[in-house]
């Protein structure tokens, strides 16, 4: 009798543990699948005669570790460069930093571009490795490899999905409804394939090239917080003021292992 009571209590505790785990996930799921807001209002007019621009170079201060080699031998169709792209530094210039206006656009709204941004799979890698897109804008995903990929974004605030794309298949067209920075995308068939999509509400963003350079055009005069986001390094923010027609240069340095 004692044993059966004990067994019952143990079972009850196990069920409670599983329920707890399920509840934890449910909260996350609800957050990521809540319905989107009402239709976007018309774009706030911007006077093109007063707009300025922001450009600069992002540097990495320190010795970057040598990129790890990727073993692509599990798929003979995967050929080409096989180095990890998580930290690309060339002569101190840091590539793949997403630079965007984090704060300062106020209640302005913007038209969503009709042209899609393209994400290509080639050589079993994503091109580009870091991508910026406006919320609601189409991301066109192409497969230029002679092998099948699956595209699997794992967002926190947008809807998660996972689709297969065989060689020469028609491009997939997707969009993301909510703002989300460094949204990971991966391929479960080729586990080294990872990239990041940055979904923002304004068109004021850029990604640093291999020389660490970026440029954001068409900024209305005002005070802004500019965020520099890298997949492996802590985010760096800078406050800037753009005067009418000003072409401002804002550089940023990420220190090896942490703060700027």
């Amino acid at each position, binding site marked *: 009798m004692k044993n059966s009571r004990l067994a019952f209590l143990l079972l009850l505790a196990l069920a409670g543990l*599983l329920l707890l*785990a399920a509840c934890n996930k449910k909260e996350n799921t609800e957050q990521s699948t809540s319905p989107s807001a009402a239709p976007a209002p018309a774009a706030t007019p911007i006077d093109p005669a007063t707009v300025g621009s922001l450009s600069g170079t992002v540097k990495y201060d320190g010795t970057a570790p040598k990129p790890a080699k990727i073993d692509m031998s599990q798929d003979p169709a995967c050929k080409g460069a096989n180095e990890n792209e998580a930290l690309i530094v060339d002569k101190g210039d840091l590539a793949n930093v997403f630079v965007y206006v984090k704060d300062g656009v106020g209640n302005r709204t913007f038209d969503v571009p009709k042209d899609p941004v393209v994400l290509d799979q080639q050589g079993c890698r994503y091109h580009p490795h870091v991508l910026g897109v406006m919320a609601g804008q189409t991301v066109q995903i192409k497969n230029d490899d002679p092998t099948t990929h699956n595209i699997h974004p794992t967002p926190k605030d947008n809807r998660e999905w996972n689709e297969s794309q065989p060689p020469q298949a028609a491009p997939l067209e997707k969009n993301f409804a909510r703002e989300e920075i460094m949204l990971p995308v991966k391929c479960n068939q080729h586990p080294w394939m990872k990239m990041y999509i940055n979904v923002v509400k304004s068109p004021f963003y850029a990604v640093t090239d291999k020389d660490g350079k970026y440029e954001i055009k068409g900024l209305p005069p005002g005070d802004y917080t500019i965020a520099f986001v890298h997949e492996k390094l802590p985010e760096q923010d800078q406050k800037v003021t753009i005067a009418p027609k000003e072409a401002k240069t804002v550089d940023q340095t990420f220190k090896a292992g942490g703060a700027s």
Partner: protein
Amino acid sequence: MFGASVTSNDAGLSVPDWPTSFGYLVKVPHLVGGVRFEWSHRMVAGSLVILTLAIAAWTFFVERRSWLRKLALAALGTVVAQAILGGMTVLYLQPPAVSTAHAAVAQTFFCIAVCIAIFTGRKWVEEVPQVEHDTRRPSLFTLTLLSIFVLYVQLILGGMFRHRGMSWWPHVVHAALVAFVLTWTAIRALSVFSKIEAVRKPAIMMLSLLITQLCLGFAAFLTRVAWGKDSVQPELPMVVSTVAHVAVGALLLATTVVLAIQVWRHVPVAFAERVPGTERTPQIA
């Protein structure tokens, strides 16, 4: 082990559809990358469903012990539930709770299969149990049940960590409790009932597997958490150590279940029955 290799290679969603694989039930896809692990896992699982169905049917028509017929049906129910959980894992994109349940039910099925093997074995059917009553508290049988419970909790915590639903530390901290409870159980079995072979053997095996499992857990922690957290892809040492850790974990759970069954058979609990108006007299269960 096939399932563990799928998770360890991060290949769980390499085939995005279910129950079909790239639109087909049995057509072999291009076996590259993560598809090799996921598709093989599905085929092994399918074969397992068929084999379990055969065992259930065979038991239903041949076996005279009704409880064993029910156990065979439970095995079938478990493997079907397991398949459904596997499908939910794919279709709902690996929710940690579902993937963890998939892992836990897999080991439950394994334990049921081991039990069926024991109950249908010649030794179980023909032997006259060597019985020795247990008057200690907690009884050895209670300790074996407690061992099974802490192992299940550990299984859930490990599954939640593997499926990114929880940090690693609850699994690691709870390992200390598992080690304590299982060592206590094994020492009690070996120190008091070592003359009973059916109890001694699984107790020794449980202790050996526990030590192996702790070493494998340490290796898995080093390769996956300490050294491998920034690795660009699953590397061989982390895959081997985690798959071995899952496999030995399943063996440890099954061995503990076997020990509990043998203790139940050979070391029944003696209990004191309180009868109003009379003296308390120890009775045998």
